C-alpha cells in the first residue's frame, strides 16, 4: 500500500519514544489500549477504539480528552491588561473583570499569525492557553514584550488540561466529587479559578462542555472519576474531525505565520473599536484590502472520496486550496476547510 507508511499514522520507533514528552496521563492511555502517535514531539493518543465511535460519543453524550500537550502561561505583576492590549489582536477589555475567556490571534508586525490562543481572566488572574508546537516561539515573544509593562511570564509546564465535551458533559462534570459547586453557574465562555485550578466553559468540538486547566498532580483523579461517570476517552483523531465539523481552524494547517487573519476566517477576532489601541500587527492589517483577500470556506465533497490538505480546487472565478480535509462522521461525507479566491460561488471542482 503506497502512502501507508508516510501517513500521519506512522508507528513510533522505540528510540523516538524515549525522547518525546509525555503527559501525566500517559500510563492511563496505554492501559486503555490507545494508539499513540508523535504529535509535535508529544506522545499522544490518536484513538482508543474507533475514531468514528469516539466522534459520535462526543456528539451524543460526553467525551473526555487529555490535551495536556497544549501550552499554559500565567502572568505576574505589572500592567497585564496593557500587555495583552498590545500583543493580542482581539481586545482584552471585552473580558477583563467579567470572568470570561476570549479567543484571538497573536500577530507579528507584518500581520502574520504567530498563533491562535485563548486568554482567560477571572478574579485578578490571567491565564493563557496556546498550541504546543509554538510553545518556545510564544514564550520568547511574551517575554520580549512583557518587559515594557513590568509583567512576569510564567510557563506552567506543571499544568495539564482535560476537556470534557458533549451534550451530557456539563452534568457529568457537576457530579465529580472535587468539583467546585460554583462551576454550575458558568455561562458559555465563562471561567473561574479554584486556587490554582481553572475551570472554563470552552472547548474545541462545537459542543457544550468544560476545559479544566489544573496542576498535573490532580489530573489522574479527575480523569478516573470522569471515566467512572461514563465520559468516553477521546483521542486526537476525533478531536480533529470534531473541530473540523465545527468549522474551527487548526494552527499550522489552516493558518500559518504567512497568513493574515482576514484570509484565515479570523477577521471577527480583530478588534479595532478602540482607535487608540496600538496592537502589534495593526498597521499591517490596515493596509490590507479585505475585498481582495482570499477567504477560508467550509466545503463538502459531493462525490465519494476524502478531501485532504493540499488538494487544489477550482471555481468559476478562481482557485482554492484545501487546508484541512477529512471525513465527517456526522454528515457521512468528506468535508474540509479551503482557502479560495474572492468571487467564489457555491460550487467548485477538485
Amino acid at each position, binding site marked *: *500500500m*503506497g*502512502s*501507508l507508511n508516510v*501517513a*500521519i*499514522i506512522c*508507528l513510533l520507533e522505540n528510540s523516538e519514544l524515549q525522547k518525546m514528552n509525555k503527559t501525566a496521563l500517559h500510563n492511563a492511555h496505554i492501559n486503555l489500549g490507545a*494508539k499513540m502517535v508523535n504529535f509535535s514531539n508529544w506522545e499522544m493518543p*490518536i*484513538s482508543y477504539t*474507533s*475514531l*468514528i465511535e469516539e466522534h459520535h460519543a462526543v456528539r451524543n453524550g460526553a467525551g473526555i480528552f487529555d490535551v495536556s500537550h497544549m501550552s499554559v502561561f500565567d502572568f505576574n505583576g505589572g500592567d497585564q491588561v496593557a500587555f495583552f492590549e498590545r500583543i493580542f489582536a482581539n481586545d482584552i477589555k471585552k473580558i477583563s473583570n467579567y470572568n470570561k475567556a476570549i479567543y484571538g490571534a497573536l500577530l507579528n508586525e507584518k500581520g502574520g499569525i504567530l498563533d491562535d490562543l485563548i486568554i482567560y481572566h477571572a478574579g485578578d488572574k490571567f491565564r493563557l492557553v496556546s498550541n504546543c508546537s509554538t510553545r518556545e516561539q510564544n514564550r520568547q515573544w511574551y517575554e520580549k514584550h512583557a518587559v515594557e509593562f513590568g509583567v512576569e511570564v510564567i510557563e506552567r509546564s506543571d499544568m495539564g488540561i482535560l476537556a470534557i465535551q458533549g451534550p451530557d458533559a456539563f452534568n457529568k462534570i457537576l457530579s465529580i466529587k472535587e468539583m467546585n459547586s460554583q462551576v454550575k453557574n458558568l455561562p458559555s465562555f465563562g471561567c473561574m479559578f479554584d486556587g490554582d485550578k481553572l475551570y472554563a466553559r470552552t472547548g474545541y468540538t462545537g459542543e457544550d462542555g468544560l476545559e479544566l486547566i489544573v496542576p498535573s498532580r490532580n489530573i489522574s483523579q479527575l480523569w478516573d472519576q470522569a471515566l467512572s461517570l461514563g465520559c468516553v476517552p477521546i483521542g486526537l*483523531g476525533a478531536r480533529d*474531525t470534531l473541530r473540523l465539523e465545527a468549522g474551527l481552524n487548526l494552527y499550522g494547517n489552516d493558518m500559518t505565520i504567512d497568513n493574515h487573519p482576514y484570509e484565515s476566517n479570523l477577521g471577527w477576532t480583530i478588534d479595532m473599536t478602540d482607535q487608540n489601541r496600538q496592537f502589534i500587527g495593526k498597521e499591517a492589517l490596515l493596509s490590507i484590502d479585505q475585498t481582495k483577500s482570499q477567504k477560508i470556506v467550509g466545503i463538502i465533497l459531493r462525490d*465519494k*472520496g*476524502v478531501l*485532504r490538505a493540499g488538494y487544489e480546487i477550482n471555481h468559476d472565478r478562481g482557485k482554492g486550496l484545501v487546508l484541512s480535509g*477529512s*471525513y465527517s*462522521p456526522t454528515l457521512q461525507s*468528506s468535508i474540509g476547510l479551503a482557502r479560495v479566491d474572492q468571487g467564489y460561488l457555491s460550487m467548485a471542482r477538485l
Partner: protein
Amino acid sequence: MNDVPADLKFLSSHEWARVESDGTITIGISDHAQDLLGDIVFVELPEVGQSVDAESDAAIVESVKAASDVYSPLSGEVIEVNSLLEDQPEIINSSPYEDGWFYKLNPSDMGEFDNLLSPDDYIDVCED
C-alpha cells in the same frame, strides 16, 4: 499481532492473496493494515475485466486519517469486485481476511504467488 490465516500470502506493503479452489485469486489488505489505517470510509475498486499488474496500484483505500494505494499481489484479469465495500467499507476493519476482501482475479502467472511472503515472513516485516 493477531493471527494471520495460514493459507494467505502477502506483499510487504500489507496486501494478501488467497488461491481459491477454482484457481482464482482473492485479494485484500491485512489486519495489521486496517488497524494502522483506522476507520475505513471509502474504497475505490478496479473494474471487472481490467488487467492489473503485480505490485502496481489496483485500488485505493481511504480511512478518516489517511489514503493509501493498494497494490496487486499478482498480475491478471479482475473477474469480480466486492460490491459490499461500496456502502459498507467498514467491514474491512471488522473482517479483513473474509468479508472485507477487495477483488478476485484470474492470475496470469502463478509463479508470482510463490514469490509472495509467507504469513510468518509477513509478521516479521510488520514487527521490524
